[in-house]
C-alpha cells in the first residue's frame, strides 16, 4: 500500500530515481538545460554564457559592442558616452583621437554626452 505521494517536482524526481513515478516527466526535469533541477555535486550551477573578451567590447572590431551576455541590453548607458569615454574606462584605444599628445582637448566642450555630443571636435589624422 502506498502511503506517500509526490506533491512537488523534487519529490517526484526522487520517486522516479528510487523506482517509481512518472519517468518521462522526471527525465525532462532532470535535463540540466531545462534548469529545473540542479545537482549540488555537479558544478557549474549556472550555464556558461558566451565568452566575450575584454569586458564590453572587442578592441579590434570598432562599432561592434556587446555586453557580457553577447547582447546589447546590458551596455553602459547613455550610449553617447561611448563616443569619448569608453577608451578610458573600457579600453577602446583605436577609436578615439590621441588625447594625450595631439588632441588633448577634443572633448573639452562636452560636459554631458547626451546633450553635448555635437560639441565634440572632429579630428583628422
Amino acid at each position, binding site marked *: 500500500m502506498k502511503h506517500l505521494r509526490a506533491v512537488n517536482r523534487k519529490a517526484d524526481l526522487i520517486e522516479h530515481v528510487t523506482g517509481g513515478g512518472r519517468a518521462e516527466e522526471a527525465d525532462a526535469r532532470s535535463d540540466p538545460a531545462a534548469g529545473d533541477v540542479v545537482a549540488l555535486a555537479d558544478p557549474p550551477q549556472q550555464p556558461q554564457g558566451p565568452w566575450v573578451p575584454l569586458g564590453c567590447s572587442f578592441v579590434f572590431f570598432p562599432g561592434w559592442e556587446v555586453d557580457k551576455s553577447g547582447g546589447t541590453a546590458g551596455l*553602459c*548607458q*547613455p550610449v553617447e558616452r561611448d563616443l569619448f569615454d569608453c577608451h578610458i574606462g573600457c579600453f577602446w584605444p583605436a577609436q578615439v583621437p590621441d588625447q594625450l599628445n595631439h588632441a588633448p582637448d577634443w572633448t573639452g*566642450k562636452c*560636459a*554631458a*554626452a*547626451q*546633450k553635448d555630443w555635437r560639441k565634440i571636435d572632429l579630428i583628422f589624422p
Partner: protein
Amino acid sequence: MSAFLAVRFAATFLAATAPLAAQDTVSGGNGTLYLAARPGRILIVDEATFRVTGEIPLAKSRPGMSYPLQLSQDRKRLLSYGLNLEDIEIVDIATRRVVDTLTLSEGNNKVRLDCYDSCGEHGTRLAFGTRPAKKLVDRFEIGPRALVEYDLEKKRVGRTIPWPKGEEQERTGLLYSPDGKLLYVLAAEDVFVYDTATLSVVDKWELSRPVEDGFGRLEVAATTDINDQPGFFTGIFEVDDPVQHRRIMGIARFDLAGKKVDFWTVGPAKPLRQFALAPGRKKAYSILDEINNWELWTFDLEGRRLEKRTPMTATGRPRMSLAVSSNGKILYIFGAGNTIDLYDAQTHRFLRTVTLDAEVGWMFVLPPGP
C-alpha cells in the same frame, strides 16, 4: 553684473536643480557632495537642495575627469589623479582649490603612478606604486615597478618601500594605519605590515589561509568608505567552495590592527556593484547588476542577512555607482551619465532624478560640520 551675466549665472545653477516632487519629503541631510565631473573639475553640491554651489577646476583631468578621485583619511583633502596617470592634484576642501600638483615624470622619463586602487596617504606622506618608462627614439624602455613614499612638504620621493619578500608585485593596495605608524601593503595573497619609521616588515597577515574551514581565501583590497571606521574596511567578497567549486559571496569586515576578519555568507555569488555603508554601519547597500535585472539591495549588518531587494524599475538601466546620503535616509545612484537617481533608503521607493550639467564619476558625501 550685467543682466546677461546674471541670467547666465542663474541658469547654470538652475540647470543642475531638478524640481522637487510634491511627495518628496525625505531629505538626505545637510551635507556637501563632491563629485568628479567633466571636463576636468569637481562639482560641489549642496545636499539639501542639490544646488551646485561651486566647482574646482582640475587642469590635469581635462577634458575627462579624475581617475580616480580619492578622499584623504582626515577628510580635508581630495586627491585627483590626472588622465595621463602621471599627475596627482591635491585639493584643499576648505579653500576649494588645488594646492599642489605632483608628478615624477621629467622630460623623456615618464612615470605612471599606480593609484587606481587608491594610494596610501597620511599627513604629508603619500605611498603609491610607480611604473617608469624612458622614451627613446624608437621605443619606450620600461623600468621596474617600485613602491615609493612621497613627501608632500619636500615635494620629492622620500623613501623607497621594499617589496614584500623581495618580490615585485603587479598590483598592491597601500593603506596607512589611522595613527600613521604602520603601513599596510595589500599584496596578492597576504597583508604585510610595515613600520613607517624603518620601512621594515614587522608583521604579516596570511590571508592566503582560509578564514574558516571549508572556505577558499579572501582577496583583500583597499577600499574607501566614508562611513567605515578608520583602520577597518568592509565589503562584499567572494570565496570559492573547495568541495562544490561554487562561488559564494558574503560580507567581510577587516580589522587591520587586530588582524581579524569577520565574514558571513549571503548566498550564491551575484554580480553586485559597489558596496556602501550607512552612517552608523548598521545597514549597507549594493546594486545588483544583471542584464535587464537591476536591483537595490539592503543588508542588515547586525542581523547578518539580506534585508530587502527591490527591482529598480523606475529608472531601470545599468548603473555603476552608489552613495549614501549624510543622514542615511537617501541612496544616490549614479554613473554613467549626468543624472543621479534618489531612492528612499528604507523603503527603496524611487524619489526623483537630479540632472546635472555634467557627467559625474566619483562622489563623496561629507556630513555638515568641521
